[in-house]
């Protein structure tokens, strides 16, 4: 302390700082600068809204004529997709897309949830270090590579085991299941981790086994998050194109078996676009806008369910 006193040069008249001055007011320049910055950031945030609007505008406008011509109802429920003959019904495509999604979900969701439970409740930290990166890597593999893998490895195996060419619903289910697995697993793990630790302890203290705790306490507690995860997986499955087009076979008929080739909402666009013209092309844009609306419905339903779940407590 004495050192400090010596270090300072002695000043006889120590004037404290600005003791009589009035408080500064916010200068106009500062005010405008802060407001301008805020608005700039707001503008950037609104790019997202602009994006959605633009997609509706451009894809919708290009697809609108087909709805005018054929009628929305007829378009959605017509049972024949034969554009070259003027038939624009996408019901079979919708059904096929739903079938593909459903099967992928049945196979993929339990696998994903099981993996998430493993990561959150069962694995030791070292195992977690191994499995979680694996899930993240699975998420990063491009869909073409999944499709390619399905094409060169899975298809011949399925053809040999079950006959036929190996294209079809079954193959699509396998590939899609692995593709939506990381999405569902990551969100489910987050949901499980946000369940307070005290709940687990309470359950164990009552003599419950680990499985009983998971099944009766944790999974129900994380219910909303898991449902969100599954819906997100559903959205991903129904919107997937590249992987599906490489293993689905792409024949324009309603498949009469799970090993028969088929066409979905997404693959029809890829297959037909190269040579479509006129009404046919317009119809493909119509399919695209339907796909967009479906994906937005998924997003909206997640919001509704989350809000519903929050009110239930």
């Amino acid at each position, binding site marked *: 302390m004495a050192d400090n006193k010596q270090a300072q040069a002695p000043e006889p008249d120590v004037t404290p700082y600005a003791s009589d001055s009035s408080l500064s007011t916010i200068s106009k320049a500062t005010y405008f600068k802060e407001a301008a910055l*805020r608005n700039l950031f707001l503008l950037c*945030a609104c790019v997202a809204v602009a994006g959605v609007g633009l997609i509706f505008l451009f894809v919708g406008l290009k697809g609108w004529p087909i709805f005018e011509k054929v009628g929305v109802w007829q378009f959605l429920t017509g049972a024949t997709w034969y554009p070259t003959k003027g038939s624009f019904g996408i019901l079979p495509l919708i059904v096929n897309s739903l079938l593909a999604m459903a099967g992928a979900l049945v196979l993929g969701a339990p696998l994903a949830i099981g993996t998430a439970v493993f990561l959150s409740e069962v694995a030791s930290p070292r195992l977690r270090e*191994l*499995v979680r990166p*694996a899930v993240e*890597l699975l998420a990063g593999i491009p869909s073409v590579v999944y499709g390619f893998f399905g094409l060169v490895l899975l298809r011949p195996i399925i053809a040999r085991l079950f006959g036929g060419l190996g294209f079809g619903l079954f193959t699509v289910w396998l590939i899609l299941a692995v593709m939506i697995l990381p999405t569902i697993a990551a969100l489910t793990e987050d949901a499980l981790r946000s369940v307070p630790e005290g709940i687990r302890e309470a359950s164990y203290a009552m003599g419950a*086994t680990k499985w009983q705790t*998971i099944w009766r306490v944790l999974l129900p507690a994380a219910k909303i998050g898991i449902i969100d995860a599954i819906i997100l997986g559903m959205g991903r499955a129904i919107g997937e194109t590249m992987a599906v087009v490489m293993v689905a076979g792409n024949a324009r008929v309603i498949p009469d078996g799970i090993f028969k080739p088929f066409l979905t909402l997404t693959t029809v666009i890829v297959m037909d676009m190269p040579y479509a013209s006129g009404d046919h092309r317009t119809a493909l844009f119509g399919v695209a806008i339907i796909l967009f609306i479906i994906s937005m419905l998924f997003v909206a339903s997640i919001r509704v369910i989350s809000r519903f779940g929050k009110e239930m407590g």
Partner: protein
Amino acid sequence: MQSRERMDKRITNGVALGVIWLAAVATVAALGTILVYVIVNGIGQLTPAFIFGWPHGVNMEGGIWPTIQATLYVTALAMLITTPIAVLAAVYLAEYAVQGRLVSTIRFAADSLASVPSIVMGLFGLALFVEGIGMGFSVIAAALALSFLLLPIIVRTTEEAIRAVPKYIRWGSYGLGASKWQTVSRIVLPSAMPRITTGVILAAGRAAGETAVVIYTMGTMINAPVSPLDPGRTMPVHLMLMAQEGINMPAAYGTALLLVLMVLGFNLTARYIGRRNRRMQG
């Protein structure tokens, strides 16, 4: 009777945990199978001639350099366009926004954008950038379409990164007479930078692997693009076309392997940055 119940409990527990283990093993096995298969079949292709050479002939013999250049070019351009907008948007949402109708709308729009099927985004790019504005098949059209896809991803990771900066640090800055923007730009963003970078790199990986968006905005012409208005064929598009034609499978495997290595590279870099950041802050 009590011990019988206890036995049942134990058996169920054991079986259930076994099933859970199985799920995890299956997941890792799936990854392993894909990686091993692609590596084993593609490794033979990875010669300098393949990587730096051009394809020629009907069978696309030779190399795939133009596709590599196209992929890197469009990815870099897309990241350049998206990242500033996404980061500033995240700054708004994390620091300035007040709960209200506008913010809810923005978030809903961002979530919707994130879940758009990539083929819809591809047709959108075709309708607006390629035909509407008249850019034709080009790197810039693809980059713009990709930007809309990447925007919500980067906004989400950046917002999380910003929120992770502790309140106390910000208060330290405000307590010294700093304005909001000074605090955000000098303290918050630099603190959040490692996490932001991780998010950006992962998004870049996503961009590099995109097919449906790129095929309708950049075309399928084999070309090493130089100007943003040049068309080109990226690696994912090349892979898809090769696989469908089935003529030159070895080249397809090589392309697949290079693509996987690229994405793996992005992934590992992001992970490394994340780990180094955690070590410095601990």
